[in-house]
């Protein structure tokens, strides 16, 4: 059965919005995705008919809400092929998930003289938590460099991993679109006795994920980039690692007992879920997982391969040397995130002109300033496509770019 993008679009009410007589062209899904009616309704229905806090009360509605909340966890676990649902911890977002690993695992395992390996294509969420911990604990950070076409340069990986205790890397770059060979990187880390932490923010929403096939140790990702609501993120970790780590945030729900002398932690996953949780958001996330699963992650990946190829061809054909697209041209190793420089027009000005025709792109440093410096710019335009985007929208981007070029020709 062929992929019916129009049918998918019909599931997303916001895509039918018309602003100043022109349709919305939403090309900013790497930043945050739009939401299908299934997610909107799941959250609204829960609030309208079933809302109750979880875990703490004996009445029927509370038990039901707890079942729904835990049901969402089970769905997420299945979605990434985690061995156990209790290995999935709900957080505020992927940034918090990475902070959780850096702080909780790091405080038990990283000391002066130790090494954490990162890459030059990480976004700030997978850089700053490690820098914060390094300043406290005195370990050092090494970086995997990039090749000229925006892939990880793995030629010295063994040297870089020598003595490393952790290798934390993105599965897909939020700027270059590069899809990294996760299984290969995990195996290299393990060969050197390092744990492998995967940042799945950009990959999990767009392609099948299997943490067991990867043999990874941790995976951080967020709901709002995978058609779910904001306010909830996820950390999957191996049971043994999560059990051995100290807790992250302290408070209610994460304790087994509290005495004046101290506390004992709850079992997983409650150990890492202090305070009242984002219950409504978890239920929305569960609906998002069902929605994506219903369409099929492999089908979504295939659609994105096709639209990425169309976008690469269109942009190159229309603008030739006037456009510099960062990252690989090979759609088998890249996702549908396209960062580019257009003529000498500053990305902010490009996006301003694009906004006149409701073409929504991100302009800026994409929370990846070290990478931007390596690319030799302080900003790019980024168009990022998802399951609901069409070739016609790529055409609208090209038309709007032409207009920006006419306006700003120096």
């Amino acid at each position, binding site marked *: 059965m062929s992929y019916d993008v129009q049918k998918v679009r019909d599931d997303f009410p916001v895509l039918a919005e018309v*602003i100043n007589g022109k349709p919305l062209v939403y090309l900013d899904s790497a930043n945050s995705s739009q939401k299908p009616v299934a997610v909107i309704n799941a959250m609204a229905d829960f609030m309208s008919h079933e809302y109750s806090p979880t875990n703490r009360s004996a009445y029927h509605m509370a038990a039901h809400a707890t079942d729904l909340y835990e049901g969402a966890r089970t769905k997420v676990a299945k979605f990434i092929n985690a061995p156990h649902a209790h290995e999935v911890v709900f957080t505020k977002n992927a940034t918090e998930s990475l902070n959780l690993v850096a702080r909780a695992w790091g405080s038990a395992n990283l000391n002066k003289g130790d090494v954490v390996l990162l890459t030059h294509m990480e976004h700030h969420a997978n850089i700053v938590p490690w820098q914060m911990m390094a300043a406290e604990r005195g370990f050092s950070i090494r970086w995997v460099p990039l090749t000229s076409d925006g892939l990880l340069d793995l030629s010295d990986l063994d040297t870089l991993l020598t003595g490393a205790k952790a290798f934390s890397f993105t599965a897909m770059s939020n700027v270059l679109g590069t899809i990294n060979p996760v299984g290969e990187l995990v195996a290299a880390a393990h060969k050197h006795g390092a744990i492998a932490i995967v940042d799945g923010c950009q990959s999990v929403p767009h392609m099948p994920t299997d943490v067991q096939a990867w043999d990874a140790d941790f995976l951080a990702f967020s709901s709002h980039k995978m058609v779910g609501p904001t306010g909830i993120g996820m950390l999957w970790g191996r049971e043994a690692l999560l059990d051995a780590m100290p807790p992250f945030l302290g408070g209610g729900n994460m304790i087994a007992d509290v005495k004046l002398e101290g506390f004992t932690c709850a079992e997983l996953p409650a150990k890492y879920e202090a305070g009242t949780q984002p219950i409504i958001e978890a239920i929305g996330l569960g609906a998002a997982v069902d929605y994506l699963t219903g369409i099929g992650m492999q089908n979504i990946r295939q659609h994105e391969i096709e639209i990425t190829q169309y976008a690469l061809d269109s942009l190159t054909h229309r603008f030739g040397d006037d456009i510099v697209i960062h990252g690989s041209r090979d759609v088998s190793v890249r996702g549908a995130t396209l960062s580019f420089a257009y003529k000498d027009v500053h990305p902010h000005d490009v996006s301003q002109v694009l906004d*006149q025709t409701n073409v929504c792109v991100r302009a*800026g440093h994409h929370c990846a300033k070290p990478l931007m410096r390596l690319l030799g710019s302080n900003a790019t335009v980024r168009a990022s496509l998802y399951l609901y985007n069409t070739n016609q929208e790529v055409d609208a981007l090209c038309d709007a770019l032409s207009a920006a070029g006419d306006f700003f020709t120096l």
Partner: protein
Amino acid sequence: MPGLEDLYREIILDHYKSPRNRGSLEPPAVRAEGHNPLCGDEIEVFITVEDDKVSDIKISGQGCSISQSSASMMSAAIKGKPIADVRALISRFKHMMSIEEGEVPDTSAPLGDLEALQGVVKFPVRIKCAILSWNTLAEALDIAGE
């Protein structure tokens, strides 16, 4: 919806394409650096202060047409002016950008080309671009006064 011509007035594009007072100054000139964390724009302002006047100013850095033209116009407007007048102009400009509350400051100093940036107020996201060089200039004046 305000049109592009409200934002990109001709004089703005002129300053963007031919920025005035580009470059740097060696010490004892004062240097201040400004960043727009939202979009990555960076600016460096160099000033020489002599006899309570900004006798020279140079601007470096990269950014969008609004941030660059605002910096260029600012440099042309304040070069050679007494510090008190420069501070008054900073205040007046911020007021025009709707980010300074209170009474309208002294309006005797002419805004000149800077008036063209008034349209930026209709594009709230871009106010930070327009104001970047002015905040950086204020910081340079503070350093010079130490």
